[in-house]
């Protein structure tokens, strides 16, 4: 379009549009009419506008699909802008920086760039510049500090898709019944046990079911030492042993097992060593010894402190091994002699003890024994 009066262009253009819209006053319409009569270019242009307006009037209104709007918006890549807060900080920094530079009236108007960076003022300027740079970097990247919610899950230049999401079911809404039990059976150990034929058999046993309910047994199962014991191969063998099973049933043994002293003895390291000793094991099997163990007098003797000391004595241990002494112990007369109070006193006598050691007396005793037999 060419207009004869470029200065009137805006005015005439406005009149044209208002005419088409039907909002011109009579005076304005007349003015437009006069102008169009004088200017062919304007008249042609106005006619074009009218034609377009008519055509637009025939077009039906269409609601564009929502994706169209979003697509157009997506097409416009806008650089990152400051938020209001960022802008405010930026303005403050600039203001302060400016003040720092130009507080000196002389310098505010006539300061040359080189003068800005010399002397005391130079230090201020440099410091201000550093502050400004830091502020710029901070605002560009770091300020305001990202809200945790926004920061989680954001990936750089990747635009997150918009998806409706409302409040979801939460853990508190999922209330289960005896979840703990269900989790227990997840373990490999439980599953192996459950598949075991023997376990399946014993699980049906009423006594076993009762045992499982027993509080003491439940405590025992928790005991670490007992758990270790159950793993022990020798103990597993022992459990299979018929005699041991009988022993377990024995009422007297059950009583013994409850005894505190017995429990202490079982813990004693030396006794544990003794239990491993082959000779001791043989002794335990010996029928005569078993009889002896039942003997009440012997039980009393074992409690006697002096006898306990005697048993530790090396010489006495040697004596016990001596075949002749073993024979002597069987002798009824000797057994009677041992009961004799006078003989007991004699045995305590130091002189008699020396005499017993004397070789000549020993020979004499042998000769006397020979004569007696």
């Amino acid at each position, binding site marked *: 379009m060419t207009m004869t009066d470029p200065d009137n262009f805006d005015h005439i253009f406005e009149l044209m549009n208002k005419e088409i819209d039907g909002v011109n006053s009579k005076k304005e319409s007349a003015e437009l009419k006069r102008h169009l009569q004088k200017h062919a270019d304007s008249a042609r242009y106005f006619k074009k506008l009218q034609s377009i307006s008519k055509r637009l009037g025939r077009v039906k209104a269409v609601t564009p699909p929502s994706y169209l709007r979003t*697509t157009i918006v997506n097409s416009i890549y806008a650089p990152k802008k400051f938020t209001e807060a960022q802008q405010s900080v930026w303005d403050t920094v600039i203001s302060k920086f400016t003040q720092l530079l130009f507080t000196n009236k002389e310098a505010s108007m006539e300061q040359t760039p080189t003068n800005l960076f010399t002397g005391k003022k130079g230090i201020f300027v440099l410091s201000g510049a550093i502050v400004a740079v830091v502020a710029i970097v901070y605002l560009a990247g770091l300020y305001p500090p990202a809200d945790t919610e926004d920061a989680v899950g954001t990936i750089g230049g*990747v635009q997150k898709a918009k998806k409706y*999401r409302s409040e979801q*079911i939460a853990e508190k809404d999922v209330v289960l019944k005896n979840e703990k039990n269900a989790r227990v059976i*997840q373990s490999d150990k439980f599953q192996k046990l459950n598949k075991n034929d023997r376990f399946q058999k014993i699980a049906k046993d009423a006594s076993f079911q009762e045992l499982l309910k027993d509080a003491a047994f439940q405590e025992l199962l928790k005991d670490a030492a007992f758990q270790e014991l159950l793993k022990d191969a020798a103990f597993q063998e022992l459990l299979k042993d018929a005699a041991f099973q009988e022993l377990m049933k024995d009422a007297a043994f059950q009583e013994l097992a409850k005894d505190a002293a017995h429990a202490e003895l079982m813990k004693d390291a030396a006794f544990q060593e003794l239990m491993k000793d082959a000779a001791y094991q043989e002794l335990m099997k010996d029928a005569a010894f078993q009889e002896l163990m039942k003997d009440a007098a012997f039980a009393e003797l074992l409690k006697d402190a002096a006898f306990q000391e005697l048993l530790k004595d090396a010489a006495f241990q040697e004596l016990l091994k001596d075949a002749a002494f073993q024979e002597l112990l069987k002798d009824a007369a000797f057994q009677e002699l041992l009961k004799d109070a006078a003989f007991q006193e004699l045995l305590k006598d130091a002189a008699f003890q020396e005499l017993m050691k004397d070789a000549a007396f020993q020979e004499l005793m042998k000769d006397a024994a020979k004569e007696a037999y």
Partner: protein
Amino acid sequence: MQRVQKILAAFAYAWLLQSAPAFSQLSSLETKNLRLISYDRSHAFVVPHLARCFENAFRFHSKLFSYTPTEEVTLLLQDFGDYGNGGATAVPFNLISVGISPFHYAYETSPANERMNALMNHELVHIVALDRASESDRLFQSLFSGKIVPTRENPLSMLYSYLTTPRRYSPRWYHEGIASFLETWMDGGIGRALGAYDEMVFRTMVRDSAYIYDYVGLESEGTTIDFQVKANSYLYGTRFMNFVAYQYGPERLIQWVSRTDESRRFFASQFEHVFGVSLEQAWSDWITFERRWQQANLDSIRLHPVSRHRELSPQTLGSVSRAFYDKSQKKIYAAINYPGQVAHIAAMKIDDGAVEHICDVKGGALYYVSSLAYDSSSRVLFYTTDNNKWRDLNMVDVETGVSKLLIQDARTGDLAFNHADKSLWGVRHFIGFSTLVRIPPPYTDWNQVYTLPYGKDLFDIDIAADGKTLTGALAEVSGNQKLIQMDIQKLMKGDHSSEIIFDFDSNSPATFVFSPDGRFSFGTSYYSGVSNIFRYDFEKKSMVALTNCETGYFRPIPVSDDSLIAFNYTGTGFVPVMLTNREQEHVSAINFLGQAVVERHPIVTQWKLDPPSESSINIDSLTTYSGEYRPIDHIKVTSLYPMVEGYKDFASFGLRMNASDPILINEIDLSTSYSPNALLPAGERLHARLNLHSWRWRFLATYNAADFYDLFGPTKTSRKGYSAGVQYREFLVFDEPKTMDYLVTGSAYWGLERLPDFQNVSIKSFDRFLSVSGRLNYQYFMRSIGAVEEETGFRWQMISHNNYVNGVLFPRLLSNLDYGFLLPVSHSSIWLRGSSGYSFGEREEAFAKFYFGGFGNNWIDYLDSKRFREYYSFPGVELNEIGGTNYGKLTLEWTLPPLRFRRFGVQSFYMNWMHLSLFASGLSTNFDNPSLKQTAVNVGGQLDCKLVMFSTQESTLSFGYAVAWRDHLPSSTKEFMISLKLLK
């Protein structure tokens, strides 16, 4: 319905095969609307929560659809598979089956929020859509005493079924579409209506100008040949529902689906009634819209440079598993599954894309095929089989292809190999919990490391090369998902604390794997709505995008500092590609159609369900019963309807009654009819049949047995006289598709005039006999995606028939052996079928003989259409024409690839496919007597055409032709067969 029936059958067998005492009793919890049945006490922990979820969803649907159920809903809680699932039917009962296991989250095709809640929201939509009845439906239900299940024995039941539950006769996309659509809003935005995978599928179709199925073609071809198979029903269905909701409003969508008194019976008619346009037109409108919509999304993606990749294979691989790259061999190992070949593990050379088959994968999963882990030092792959049931753990040597079963029913997947100590790690699913497990060498036993709380799930785990760190995706009850890392040493000591690497919110962090040096982790996410590859830097603790893809990239494998391999989604499957390991600066988001629905129709936000909390639903107060469940106590009549049958050459009219319990363990069928024709003797005019089925047992009794298909000869099964029999079936091996079972049948017959099994053999010297038979059957068949029948495998049968007649025993023994293998041509197989038999009876006796002849199909039939495969069939000669007391038969069969039709018909009636089989057989009888020996050969073929009526009623139209030559006849004999098999 078929899917639910299969689940129930599997339930029956699995329940019976359980040996542990804990699994021996059914229990139920009942409310006014619900009967929740569980067979395993270890599931009891979730029963109250599941019941609350049901009641919560039920209240919503009752209100939205103004729905009053015809009966309570029976809900069967089961643990048949390692991944959760659901199925529903309303015929004959309202029945939902719910799997207790966690879902699989591959490609975000399943929701990651609490699954019982999600399942109830989804499955109850099916119940409402099927069960909601109009006045006329209720009238017919009342007339016929229930909702009728169509049975092939009485095809008229198809008509009655349509009268009682017309909406059952709608395509699967319709049902799954509305269920997925509604479920999304009920779950507050989690579901396929806002699914990125669905957007990707259609975006790819538009990009590639691929064919988008119309609603007939979808059922005919789209749900059968695609590598995604039946997933297309969900894809198309949800998408179409989304479009209709967007275009016309969600309320009108509900109006379409609701079966009210004013609604039309047929779903397509109802569509036109509600929307004023035909379904066909609306579908076409949707396709047009979809092309525009996806073009806009593609434009959005293309605002920034789209990633360039180099394809490593000229062929698409269908579905793929996690893959591994062997640098020394330059090969990728993965499990793949595509139409035409059974699922298998393959090695693909990246230089030329050549694919080598390593070993088959029994039971490949739809999306992920199998779970894989790789020991690069021994060059051994660990993989899972039976992925749709209880997974087995196996290993295969990639060099030799020799595979070995390590742990049966390991129930473990998401495998990861720890190169530091050679242990294998995985996530085990057992009675609804996810447990991180460690499997040390020799990989025959697993150890529990950490069991997650119910509702939380760990998947896609990976272990760094140094064996110190494990990463994985953690899904919360809310559906939020995070990428986490755990210290392996701490895990071994019982400390299962984790560190969040990245919070992906509602987007799944998929298949994140370590780089060889452990500095980075590479994975994918639909963060922008498109599946792109992301790289996490452990040092910088930052996540960056590496790609901007038009379709989607998945399963990245870092190869070097500057390259990585990934799988690019295409319409026919995944293609392995090589990509640059370089940050992508900008990626635009796409728009979701579901989001547009929300913005235009905010009413869907009001469909958000409140959580099923204890405070809002007091299940204790709603419970009417809790205790033992005995199926036999719940048997009731499910239908009673008139029928017509054939007896010899006469029609007979009567009634059929069906009864069963809600989970179909016990079934009773009773039919009685009367032939009014005076030509029949009075003693043959009344007919009756009783069929009882309970667990492994079946009892059958007949009196003058009649049969509907005898109206359409030439094969007649109706017989004068009485019969009573009992049958028992037991599975010795139930590891589908591998099974071994035996079947024992004992029957008594009296008042006969013809042999029960051979209609052309009359009997005069006796009219009664006893029969005892046994069959031992072992079979292992497999089929590929898109197959119409079994394509490869093996079956062996040993059968004994023993008849006791007039004080004489006539034992007969026969054996069948079938072996088939796939040809390099997709869906084409060669089968060798052999059979031989021997009878110990006198040759003159009818009972002592085997009889052969004919195709065996009736003009209208209900038995197997491919009867020419039976040992007694010999096309080209008359029925029962060739007999003998011993025989040998061999058949060579070639099955050609089926010809599928994209659209051949209309919605209510169309043809799916045509399938041609060619065969040649040789038969010889009476080997032991040269004068009586008969030999015959034939060649022939059979063409089968699959027809579908009213979306779900499948039938087979068969044409057969054979020519036979016999040694003592001068010329050949021919036979032409035409047969329509109703209902499959």
